[in-house]
C-alpha cells in the first residue's frame, strides 16, 4: 500500500505537527519506503503468540512490590516547575485563547 498526500496531512494533523510543503513531500516518500520495509512482518504467522507490550521477567524478585499505596504526598516544587513555563502566572500556565467569547 502507498501513503497519499492526504494520509500524510491526516497524520500530521493527529500529531499536531505543522509541516511545510517540502516536508509533506519528503515524509510521504520516506514513510512509503519505511512502511514497505515494515510490511515484511506480514509474512509471519503470529496467531500463536500474544502481543508483547512490556518486558515480563521470570527472575526471582522481578514481580514483587511493583505497586505502591496510592497516597497523596505534599510537594512544594510547584513554583519551581512554573518557572520553566514559557508563560505563567503564580499557580497557572497561561495559553492562547481556547474558546471564542
Amino acid at each position, binding site marked *: 500500500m502507498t501513503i497519499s498526500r492526504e494520509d500524510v496531512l491526516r497524520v500530521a494533523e*493527529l500529531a499536531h*505537527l505543522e509541516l511545510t510543503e517540502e*516536508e509533506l513531500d519528503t515524509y510521504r516518500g520516506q514513510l512509503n519506503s519505511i512502511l514497505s520495509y515494515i510490511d515484511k512482518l506480514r509474512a*509471519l504467522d503470529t496467531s500463536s503468540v500474544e502481543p508483547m*507490550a512490556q518486558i515480563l521477567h521470570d527472575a526471582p*524478585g522481578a514481580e514483587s512490590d511493583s505497586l*505502591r499505596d496510592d497516597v497523596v504526598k505534599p510537594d512544594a516544587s510547584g513554583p519551581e516547575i512554573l518557572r520553566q513555563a514559557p508563560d505563567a502566572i503564580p499557580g497557572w*500556565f497561561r495559553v492562547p485563547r481556547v474558546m471564542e467569547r
Partner: protein
Amino acid sequence: MNADGMWNISSVRSTILRKKISARELAEDFYVRIKRENPHLNAFLALSPERAFAQADRMDSLLARGERLPPLAGVPIAIKDVISTTGIPTTCGSKILENYVPPYDATAVQRLEEAGAVILGKTNCDEFAMGSSNENSAYGPVRNPVAPGRVPGGSSGGSAAAVAAGLAVAALGTETGGSIRQPGACCGIPALMPSYGRVSRYGLIAFASSLDRIGPLATSVEDTAAILGVMAGRDPLDSTSCSVPVPDYQSHLGAAMDGLRIGIPREYFGEGLDPEVRRKVEEAIGVLEKLGCRRVELSMPHTDYAIAVYYVVATAEASSNLARYDGVRYGLREPASTLRDMYRRTRGRGFGAEVKRRIMLGTYALSAGYYDAYYLRAQRVRGLIARDFSEAFQQADVLITPTTPTPTFRLGEHTQDPLQMYLADIFTVTASLAGVPAISVPCGRTAAGLPVGLQIIGPHFREDRVLQVARAYERATQDTAN
C-alpha cells in the same frame, strides 16, 4: 594515569588516596582537556563546574578527615543530555527543550553522586536519542575522536566520544535500540546495556518506555561493572525497576570460563556483514574458545524482523511520549493566536526532521484502521523475538555476535536515507526488544584503523556473566597486545 594518558576508576582512586592529586585538581584538569578538545569534538553541550567542584571538595575533605572514600570518589563522569540533572540544562539535543533546566535528578545520577562521582556536564546526542550517528542533534554533529571524518555512532555519540577522547573517565548513555553499544563500537570502548528493569529510568526523558535503558560507557570492562553496581537496583520512583538482588559484579569478573557455552547465532553472520568485521569477530570467538569456552552454533529465526518490529514499537511509544512537548509547561513556545495553532507551530518548528519522521510513523501505526496491522502485529513478532532468546539461552550461556554490520561510516553518508541509517542497528535492536543485557567490547581494528565491536549478550539479569566473558576476552587480548 596510565601510559596513554587515560584515567580509570582504580587509577583515580589510588592517585587520590596517595594524595598525588586532589579530586578538585583532577576535575580542573578534565575541564582544561574539555576546553581544549570540545570545540572540535562537540561532545559536550553543557558543563557543570560549580556542581563538579563542590562534589570534588566534599571528597577531598572526606580524605582530609581520614574517612573512608565511597567507590567512585572523585571520578569525573559525563551524563548524556536525555538524563535529568538538577540545575544543569537538559536539552535532549533538541531545540524544543533549549532552555529547559530540570528541577530534579535522575535516580542514576543521584546514585553516582552518592558514590562520590563528579558530574562534569552533559553530552551531545541525537535529538531525543533518535539516531545512529549523532547527526540528528540540533546542536551539531559529534566528531569521532579515533576515526577522523567518521561518525561516533549514536545516539549516545557525545558520551562515547568524550570517553574515547579522555574528556571523562566514564559516561552514562541510554539505549532504546543500540544507542549505547553502537557508539561504543564506533569509538572503540566498552559499552554496556543492562537488563530492562536493572537501572531505574526515573529522570530519563522518555523516548520508548518499554525499551529505554541507562548504561555506562568506559575505558575498561571493570569500570562498566563498577558503575553498573552503583546504579543498579529497585527504585520506588520507577515501577518497572526490579528487586532482583544486585550481585557484586566486580568480584565475579574473574570467574572460571572453562566449559562456558558461547552461542553463535548464524543469522548475525549472513549477508550484509562487512568481511573485515566478520574476520575480527571470528578471531574473537577463537580467543574465547582458547579460554575454554565451548562453541554452540544456533539459530534465532526471527532476527531479520527485528528492525521492522523496532520501528513500529519504538515510534508508536515515541509518538505518545513526545506529545508532552506542546509549548505549555516548558521549553519552546511559538506564538499563535489559538491554542491549537500554538501546539502545531511549536512542534513543527521545535522538533528536527528525524523526530518528526518518527512521530509521524508512530502516529500512523497507532491510527484507526492500522493499529492491528502494524502495532499489534509488531508486538506479536516482538514476542517471537523474545522467544528466540529464551530458546537460545537453553543451549548457550551467552551469545556472541558483531555489534554492528559495518565499522563507523562517514559523516553525511546515510543522512539522506533513513532506512539505511536504521539498518546500522540490525544486530543491537534484538536484545533491546527482548529486554536482555548486552555489552559491546573493542575487538581490534580494520585495515583502515576503524574500531570493531564484539557483542556479548546474556539472559535477563545475568550482567555478571556478560561482564565476566567481556573481561576475560579483554584480558586475553590485552596480553597478546603487550
